[in-house]
């Protein structure tokens, strides 16, 4: 099983309330671009923060790209004080977003998500429309590169809806 698939299963194993976003969500929505990391927008309810921490600890998560001198304690309090985090884990890179630019927080992501049954569980996946909004808002070169294909898929999907 690939790193990303293991990460997705981890979320289900620990009942983490989240919406799959980013490249993996785009891949699930039909984009042909491959991804190796997993981005999620997570609920910041206290109980969920505990579940997120338990899940991350089980795969030895460490803060990615942070200076060595920065002391980082992975617990619910730390997550509560921050918002977005990037981790390296035993099963690959894992990025947590409390808010997604162009979309909003977990409740907004949930509102604009589709449900998918994958890897033996049910997951919420950010809608194609909102993936496009997020990538437009992020505006990094890699996001802008993904946009033409995503817009073409959305256009085709809307057209097919009209004709069926």
């Amino acid at each position, binding site marked *: 099983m*690939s790193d990303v*698939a293991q990460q*997705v299963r981890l979320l289900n194993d620990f009942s983490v309330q989240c919406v799959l976003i980013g490249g993996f969500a785009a891949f699930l929505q039909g984009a042909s671009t491959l991804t190796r990391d997993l981005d999620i927008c997570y609920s910041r309810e206290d109980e969920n923060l505990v579940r997120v921490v338990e899940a991350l600890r089980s795969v030895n998560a460490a803060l990615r790209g942070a200076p060595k001198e920065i002391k980082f304690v992975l617990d619910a309090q730390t997550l509560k004080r921050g918002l977005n985090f990037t981790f390296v884990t035993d099963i690959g890179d894992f990025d947590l977003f409390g808010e997604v630019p162009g979309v909003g927080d977990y409740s907004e992501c949930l509102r604009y998500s589709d449900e998918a049954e994958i890897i033996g569980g049910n997951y919420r996946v950010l809608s194609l429309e909102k993936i496009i909004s997020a990538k437009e808002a992020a505006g990094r070169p890699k996001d802008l590169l993904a946009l033409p294909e995503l817009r*073409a898929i959305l*256009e*085709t999907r809307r057209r097919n809806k009209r004709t069926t």
Partner: protein
Amino acid sequence: MDKVEYTEEELWLIEPKPGTAAARARDFGVDLSLTVGNLRLSPEERIKQLDRYLESLKNLRRNLRWISRASERAA
């Protein structure tokens, strides 16, 4: 060799009409035949395909032996 048959809906991506998002994607350099191939799969099948692809890449990298490298030849 067999030719891939496309449905009418898929042809909107394979042979896009001018002015559409699909035409812009094609002109941008996106290979929309790959997109169509991916859209034919369910999300679960896409993940399985991704698994197989990443596994084969890992094996390839594991078995890779450089015979010579341009940077060494240039030195």
